[in-house]
């Protein structure tokens, strides 16, 4: 960091975004972890000039960043695509109030849903919220456009959206670096209700300014340096942006291109001019026909989603196939689906394995949520029945309880992780307490935000820099809501967990069960790993019950043999279980499900 040398460095898009923000004099950075955006704040937090935080959720993140910007500091809020849904409320009205210091909002989309519950196209937000949006096509552009976004934000008095996607955020390319320049803007609190207080009377006065801004931005878009015509062979013209540009260039290096760096607002004359330069015109974009609809609306003949897929991410092969047809060389190569797949599963020693084994046994409908525990849904655990969005499980279970009427609370539970709970599980729990629920809410507390890389959260006890931070007490919070039945269980103790869950399901009152056990990957747990268990081959019947807990350390060996029953009889078996000592952490969930208690500690 530092220095202003032209030497290029290999950087992921997310690191380049953080770099660009830092170079622009960004002073405040906020985010909630979410793939593919997570690393942005991690990198930003390494700069001493930036006050960086993990916010409990994206709405808070954007509001904190907005406050900093209102005071004159340049601020950045980063989130994944669905995160912008959470932050949408402040976003839309910030378009009216504007800011003072530049405010940049990063939306990291996930075409193909590599790690998300949907693949929504967040370009629509720019149009709906009436905000400019920039879209980089590689790491160097990410740095440059984020830097530019701060200046644009101040010039046009509004937040600026910068859209990235998985292949940009997690792709690495060569990036130039420049020195940091502090913003000359004075930090002060400006009393200006007409600007900041969005009462209808004031908001109505700001409304025409929003339209005027967008109109002026359209004129900028016509000659914006990052909206470039790259002339080539006139027989084929391609309008594109972002990573789709790279795929198209790979497939058709000789074609003519109109590459857009500003996704909203869109120009008109620039499109007409380009259309006039080429014989055939295509739009190559991932997900929705956002560009295509606009271009067609200008009366320009163009081909887009008729040949370019609407679903999932693109690739050079898909672009080639779409434009040149099925017989062209370089078609997509399918995966051999007969090969054993390698889906993500809960780690060996994950504290959640035990409680989901119990939930499956209890045969209740489990309204789940987003986190590592969502991995309990597929077979063989098969212990999670719904997952909609952050914090949804609790409310969904309450809705089911209402629909089911009598007996309902015994048939459905909700399950939510600690970080997800702080994100958006607090308000639905409040709803259940306030509106007379008799259900059971299970909070899985593994002391971290595990799935995204073990970031801190308000209950974890550490902040983004790894320094000690106050830890919110979930049990006390439940008590503060007037919930009397608050139980704490060790999720690796199946007997205890089952007994408590049965009691709480039967109770005619709202219950909160906190299953507390650290994520096996955090230092607290690594230090407490117990010796690996070993299967006693004398008594293993090969019944495969232990395999149903889906632990990666346990495997089945198909080899005929014999075992001895508890009564001393010798019986045949078709195979036996074995434990990989390198992976086993001694949690003993397998032993607890084994009818023969065949999993032993080493003697």
């Amino acid at each position, binding site marked *: 960091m530092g220095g202003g040398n032209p030497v290029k460095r290999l950087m992921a898009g997310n690191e380049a975004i953080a770099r660009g923000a830092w170079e622009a004099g960004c002073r405040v950075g906020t985010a909630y972890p979410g793939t593919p955006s997570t690393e942005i704040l991690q990198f930003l937090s390494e700069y001493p000039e930036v006050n960086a935080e993990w916010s409990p959720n994206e709405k808070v993140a954007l509001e904190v960043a907005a406050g900093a910007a209102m005071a004159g500091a340049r601020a950045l809020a980063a989130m994944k695509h669905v995160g912008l849904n959470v932050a949408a409320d402040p976003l839309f009205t910030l378009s009216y109030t504007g800011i003072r210091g530049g405010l940049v909002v990063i939306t990291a989309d996930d075409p193909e849903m590599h790690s998300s519950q949907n693949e929504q196209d967040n370009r629509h937000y720019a149009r709906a919220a009436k905000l400019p949006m920039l879209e980089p096509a590689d790491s160097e552009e990410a740095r440059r456009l984020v830097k530019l976004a701060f200046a644009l934000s101040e010039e046009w008095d509004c937040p600026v959206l910068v859209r990235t996607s998985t292949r940009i955020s997690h792709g690495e390319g060569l990036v130039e670096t420049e020195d940091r320049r502090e913003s000359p803007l004075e930090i002060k609190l400006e009393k200006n209700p007409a600007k900041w207080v969005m009462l209808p009377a004031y908001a109505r006065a700001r409304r025409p300014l929003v339209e005027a801004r967008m109109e002026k931005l359209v004129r900028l878009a016509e000659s914006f340096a990052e909206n470039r015509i790259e002339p080539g062979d006139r027989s084929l013209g391609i309008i594109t942006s972002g990573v789709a540009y*790279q795929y198209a260039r790979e497939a058709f290096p000789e074609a003519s291109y109109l590459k857009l760096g500003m996704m909203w607002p869109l120009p008109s004359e620039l499109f007409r001019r380009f259309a006039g330069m080429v014989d055939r015109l295509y739009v190559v974009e991932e997900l929705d026909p956002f560009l295509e609809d606009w271009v067609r609306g200008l009366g320009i003949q163009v081909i887009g989603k008729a040949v370019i897929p609407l679903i999932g991410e693109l690739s050079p092969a898909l672009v080639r196939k779409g434009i040149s047809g099925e017989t062209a060389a370089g078609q997509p190569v399918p995966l051999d689906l007969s090969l054993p797949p390698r889906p993500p599963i809960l780690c060996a020693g994950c504290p959640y394995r035990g409680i989901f084994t119990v939930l499956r046994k209890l045969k209740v409908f489990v309204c789940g949520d987003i986190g590592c525990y969502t991995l309990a849904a597929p077979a063989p655990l098969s212990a999670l029945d719904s997952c909609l969005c952050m914090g949804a499980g609790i409310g969904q279970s309450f809705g089911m309880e209402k629909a089911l009427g009598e007996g309902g609370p015994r048939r459905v539970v909700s399950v939510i992780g600690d970080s997800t709970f702080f994100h958006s599980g607090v308000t639905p729990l409040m709803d259940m307490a306030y509106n007379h629920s008799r259900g059971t809410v299970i909070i899985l507390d593994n002391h971290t935000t595990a799935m995204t890389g073990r970031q801190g959260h308000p209950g974890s006890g550490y902040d983004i820099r790894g320094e000690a931070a106050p830890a919110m007490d979930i049990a006390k919070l439940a008590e503060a809501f007037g919930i009397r039945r608050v139980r704490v269980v060790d999720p690796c103790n199946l007997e205890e967990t089952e007994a408590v869950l049965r009691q709480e399901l039967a109770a005619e009152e709202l219950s909160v069960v906190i299953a507390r056990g650290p994520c096996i990957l955090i230092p607290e747990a690594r230090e407490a790993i117990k010796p690996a268990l070993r299967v006693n081959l004398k008594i293993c019947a090969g019944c495969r019950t232990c*395999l149903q807990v889906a632990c990666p350390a346990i495997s089945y060996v198909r080899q005929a043999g014999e075992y001895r029953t508890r009564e001393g009889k010798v019986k045949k078996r078709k195979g036996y279980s074995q434990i990989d000592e390198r992976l086993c952490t001694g949690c003993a969930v397998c032993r607890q499900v084994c009818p023969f208690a065949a999993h032993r500690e080493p003697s």
Partner: protein
Amino acid sequence: MVMKVTNVLMAGVGGQGIILASGVLAKTAAAAGLDVKKSDVHGMAQRGGSVLSHVRFGDRVYSPLIPDGETDILMAAEFLEGLRWLPQVRSRGRVVLSTQRILPPTVTRGEQAYPEDILEKIKRRDPRAIHLDCLEIAQAAGDVRTATVVLLGALSTLLPFAQRKWIELLEQEVPKKAVPVNLVAFRRGREWAKG
């Protein structure tokens, strides 16, 4: 003359160090003055998923992902992953793979069998495929955790970068205390591939 882009696909299982290995290759190529792009598919890697890293280098690289079927060299740190990604290797492309097996969940549960014809299929695409027991070589070198660096050493024999350039980058990317054993591992991988 415009240098055609070289596409190296690295595959393995979460925890094997694929990201480290691809980082070393990418930076070695960048140090040689080439344009480089790399795409890592991770995130679920900690939880036993496949890890894939696309590394592309040449005069000018556009797509961060290797186009379908255009992989020049497949480097696989796990045997089955070598077979899974084999269709991406172009005709006359090369394969460097470890014979180490990490059983996927359906295999450990006894529901599916680990394929037994992997090497045979690999050799149909690349008769000169380099295959080695990286764990064993890493153990002999002094640390099982250097298995993927052994593989990287074998891969390096197929690429035009000088050995000392690789070593420079390895020294930068690997924790200081682990540098000596990693250099031994790298060299042994190279020797295996040459011999």
